[in-house]
């Protein structure tokens, strides 16, 4: 690891410095308490975005699949959270951290399993027929997204559904004079845990090694004797399962779930993937936090620019590094 870091050229360090530079650069232009509130909010938003985008960057990077249906699995996760929180309403409304965390864990587990299972069916029925055909992938996954949204309407109805946060997650903590929402802290912890888990999986297991190799050169992985299609299924299922838990967290953050909650995030997720570098989990993690921070800082400092801030960010990053911050296989 140390040798790897030491082998980086000076220019390669710059993307790693981007986040701390951004955080420090904004400190002089606002009060410390405002800065702290916005920074934590940005990190929390970034973590939720990471949960939703992490799977897609692997699907893109390894499988070269352009799936616009990723939002459907976010939507599924959010609606499953509505059902789980509805079924365990007593746990959710109790002022008990243990019960509140238990209901969140139940919702995350259900979303993880159901979204993963739905992803498996989607890959077997649809995606595997269009490997290598990008135009068909776009068309068929757009169709899949529309069908999924209509299935949601058929199951949960057309009206938006409330998804209130559990009692203990509501309100804020006052830290150094700054109001920090408790839920955002939970999102940060979960996001970091998922990132750490993915990092370990990718860097400490043979499956992870294969995924990283496959993102760079599928043909060579096959020439080494590995059946890459089996890996594709595993990555697709993992990606959709992560989207499901991202949907749970995003639904709770919004406290209102609509059938388009996932599809509305699609563009933002693609922006994160492009900024981070396709196929890079570390890049996705950095880009998601970057987008979360920029959205919060710009929303406070220049509200009129807030809407276009992420697109502007993407343009600037691409002008600097055309293949994203951490392009895979650039070594």
């Amino acid at each position, binding site marked *: 690891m140390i040798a790897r870091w030491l082998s980086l050229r000076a220019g390669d360090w710059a993307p790693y410095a981007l986040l701390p530079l951004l955080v420090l650069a904004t400190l002089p232009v606002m009060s410390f308490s405002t800065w702290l509130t916005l920074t934590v909010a940005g990190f929390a938003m970034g973590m939720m975005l990471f949960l939703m985008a992490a799977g897609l960057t692997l699907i893109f990077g390894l499988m070269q699949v352009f799936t616009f249906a990723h939002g459907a699995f976010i939507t599924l996760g959010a609606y499953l959270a509505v059902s789980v929180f509805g079924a365990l309403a007593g746990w959710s409304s109790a002022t008990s951290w243990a019960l509140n965390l238990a209901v969140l864990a139940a919702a995350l587990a259900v979303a993880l399993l159901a979204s993963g299972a739905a992803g498996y069916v989607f890959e077997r029925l649809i995606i595997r027929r269009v490997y290598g055909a990008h135009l068909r992938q776009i068309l068929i996954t757009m169709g899949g997204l529309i069908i999924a949204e209509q299935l949601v309407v058929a199951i949960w109805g057309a009206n938006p559904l409330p998804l209130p946060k559990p009692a203990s997650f509501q309100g804020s903590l006052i830290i150094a004079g700054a109001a920090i929402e408790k839920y955002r802290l939970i999102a940060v912890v979960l996001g970091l845990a998922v990132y750490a888990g993915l990092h370990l999986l990718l860097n400490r297991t043979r499956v992870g090694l294969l995924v*990283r190799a496959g993102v760079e050169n599928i043909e060579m992985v096959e020439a080494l004797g590995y059946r890459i299609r089996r890996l594709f299924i595993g990555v697709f299922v993992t990606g959709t399962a992560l989207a499901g838990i991202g949907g749970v967290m995003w639904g709770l953050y919004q406290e209102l779930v609509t059938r388009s909650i996932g599809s509305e995030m699609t563009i933002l997720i693609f922006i994160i993937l492009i900024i981070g570098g396709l196929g890079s989990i570390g890049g996705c993690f950095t880009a998601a936090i970057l987008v979360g921070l920029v959205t919060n800082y710009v929303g406070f400092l220049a509200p009129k620019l807030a809407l276009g801030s992420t697109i502007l960010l993407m343009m600037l990053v691409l002008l600097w590094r055309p293949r994203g911050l951490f392009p895979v296989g650039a070594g």
Partner: protein
Amino acid sequence: MTNDILLELAGVHTHIGRYHILHGVDLAVRRGRLTMLLGRNGAGKTTTLRTIMGLWRRSAGEIRFDGAPIGALATPDIARLGIAYVPENMGIFAELTVRENLLLATGPEGFDEARLEDVQALFPALREKWNNPAGSLSGGQKQMLAISRAIIEERRLLIVDEPTKGLAPAVIQLLIDAFLRLKGTATTILLVEQNFHMARSVGDDVAVMDDGRIVHTGSMAALAADEALQQHLLGLSLASHQ
């Protein structure tokens, strides 16, 4: 076909899109020998290797490995027969460390320490770069890594595509030494090469391709000794490749 032949191509045709690249290739690779596949640019050498590995599908003809047809097998199944392939671009995973690149080519139990020692002895430079990303290696070191990866497990056939391409003479000599040592282990090798000095130094048998066909087969020593034949087949004189 005799038992002496490990790999045999008979009348193999390959199309890539609407282009007809191989026009009935007949090739035999004998066990325990190093067979050179020579030819001008565009003769079809790389396509032949990729067709053997199933990376491009043959449109006609038969490919047999140890007597069994493999032309219809998928690439991973062909590799699992014990065929290692080093492509022209080396196929190095730049983001992975040297260790991880080699580990991918081992079985579930990981490295065989004795064999790893042998490979590291073959290319000591790799030992020093063990935990560095492969993308940070020089061109020569990448080629050493690609060849090491191909032999980190015992293979029945080693297929290598232009290992000396773009390398400095000192590195080429290192590769020649490595192939000579591999020959000492009776490894069967099929080697595509444009560098005639390398071919002459390591080759036992030779097949020359032109326009998608094998136009000459024989011993490498005989071709190296016949300058007129070289001129005819390859358009070069040995004197210019000393």
